[in-house]
């Protein structure tokens, strides 16, 4: 087992370096100049000398190999440097957003689990009945409805419902307060994006629960249990569900990693100051260091989540370790 863990750990390194390589050169292939944008802003005239100097200060004139080495060394030492636009430490800028993104991701996961496990089970147990059809329709709708559209509709509904109930219009807060400082304020802001993304996310998980449960229900030991005359409920709770959850955990793991950096559109709709938005902002202002930093954090979250999922798999299913 430990050998497998070690091998799996080693395999993370090329992925991380590969991602670093891709983002580094992708950024430099994009048009646009951070100095031009920083100094020229909204239409101001900047002379060449200032731009040259700015580029020099930011180290943009160093050979690419040197810049890349700096960047990789930075990842290795967990020192991402400073933002080319704001000049603040990237770890500080990311730290602010990481908290919020993490909370939304966790809440969305909870929402998704609460919806998907019961619904997926129902759907599998009553396969090809009207219950199954309804559950699947609801689940597929979750994938089909664009999350930004759902977000806009939720916000509109909040305005109308609050007015109908209290007479004044209510909108979620605009600024993030950590949950331990003011839980009510915090939750009244973040519950909505968590529901909007959690629904989409639950759709994937519901389908996975259903299909893996169906597979398990056909396995021999379940048939044996049935033959022994065990009550259906016990079979499902005690035997089937436990074994069927593995692929569901995988899906949840991968989705969780995605939620950390992939919620750009939802963040925009709900005015969340999260990692996804920071990422888009820094790319659109050609802030190389900042973009690289965030991409690497997202890649790391992804790689580490996958690592744990794989380890879990190997632990539960010894065949994997030896293959």
């Amino acid at each position, binding site marked *: 087992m430990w050998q497998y863990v070690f091998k799996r750990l080693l395999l993370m390194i090329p992925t991380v370096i590969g991602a670093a390589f891709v983002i580094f050169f992708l950024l430099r292939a994009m048009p646009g100049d951070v100095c031009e944008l920083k100094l020229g802003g909204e239409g101001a005239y900047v002379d060449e000398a200032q731009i040259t100097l700015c580029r020099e200060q930011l180290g943009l004139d160093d050979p690419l190999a040197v810049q890349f080495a700096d960047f990789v060394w930075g990842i290795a030492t967990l020192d991402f440097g400073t933002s080319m636009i704001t000049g603040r430490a990237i770890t500080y800028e990311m730290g602010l957003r990481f908290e919020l993104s993490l909370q939304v991701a966790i809440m969305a996961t909870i929402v998704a689990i609460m919806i998907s496990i019961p619904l997926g089970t129902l759907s599998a147990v009553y*396969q090809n009945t009207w219950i199954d059809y309804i559950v699947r329709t609801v689940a*597929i*709708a979750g994938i089909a*409805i*664009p999350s*930004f559209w759902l977000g806009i509709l939720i916000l509109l509904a909040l305005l109308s419902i609050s007015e109908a109930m209290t007479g004044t219009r209510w909108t979620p807060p605009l600024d993030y307060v950590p949950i331990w400082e003011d839980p009510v304020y915090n939750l009244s802001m973040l519950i909505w994006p968590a529901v909007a993304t959690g629904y989409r996310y639950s759709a994937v998980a519901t389908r996975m629960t259903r299909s893996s449960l169906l597979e398990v229900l056909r396995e021999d030991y379940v048939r044996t249990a049935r033959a022994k005359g065990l009550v259906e409920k016990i079979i499902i709770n005690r035997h089937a569900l436990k074994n069927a959850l593995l692929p569901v955990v995988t899906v949840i793991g991968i989705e969780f990693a995605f939620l950390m*950096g992939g919620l750009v559109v939802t963040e925009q709709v709900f005015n969340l100051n999260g990692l996804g938005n920071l990422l888009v902002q820094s790319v659109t202002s050609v802030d190389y260091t900042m973009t690289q930093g965030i991409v690497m954090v*997202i*890649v790391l979250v992804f790689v580490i989540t996958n690592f744990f999922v794989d380890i879990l798999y190997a632990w539960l299913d010894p065949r994997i370790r030896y293959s």
Partner: protein
Amino acid sequence: MTEMTTDQLEELRDRISLFKQFTGFVRKQPLGTAGGVVVILYILMAVFAPYITGFDPTENFYQNQFVAPGMQFPMGTDEWGRDILTRVIYGSRTALFVGFTCAIVGSTVGLVLGVGSAYYGGLIDLLFQRVMDVFMAFPLIIMALAIVSMSRSLHLPPDTSVYFVIIAITIPFIPRCARVVRASALAIREIPYIDAARANGFSDARIILRHMVPNVMAPYLIMITAFVGQAILLEASLSFLGLGVQDPVPAWGLMLRNAQEFIRTEPWIAIWPGVAISLGVFGFNLFGDAIRDALDPKLRTQ
């Protein structure tokens, strides 16, 4: 009445069995059938767009700004006085073009890479898997932003922007398909007859094409049907972020982006494109699920 020749009989039998398969599908997969109907309707809508509506989707009629849904404009008009129904209909062209192209190209490249990687194995396989890992881990939005930005500085002829949207969406599909295909192909590679074929001196290309590819067609087709809906949704998201196709091209995501400003005062502008996306993706997903159930041997017996 003349006697039927054996050929005709054969044909008839084929037809009957095809019909039986079809009715069987409809009976077993009512949801999938519903999805299939939606898919066919959307395809018809895209193909026959100019025959369904008389309006030009890009022509502005300033005297018709913000007309509510009614007799003349069943879904109302938008901020430029354009008929929304017309734009929703023409929008299906953009959506389906992007959807099918991305799904087919992404899955096919994935198929080739996945099978090749499984067949050659060893170092090639190892390297290939690491590259796929990188692309799996990479945030899609950055890829899309970078590709779209780069395309702008290339100074390409007009109306090529949609191809870059397609590239941006296709890239993340490749590793996902390749991974699934590789897993199936690995299993097939273990079967002794591949070794036998090798021993007989068949070329690599022949073995791959004749023996391995046909055996991974099921996951390949499942991936294609699953990707179409996802590609439509991704295109809508990119357009919503302003990274997709540009005005005045009719596209649902772009229509939603523009409609945000009017969602309170003229809600019909924001509702129909959203319905078009949701229903379309819904249909493709239902259909894709049914195809998966039909093709997946494990589930077929159920």
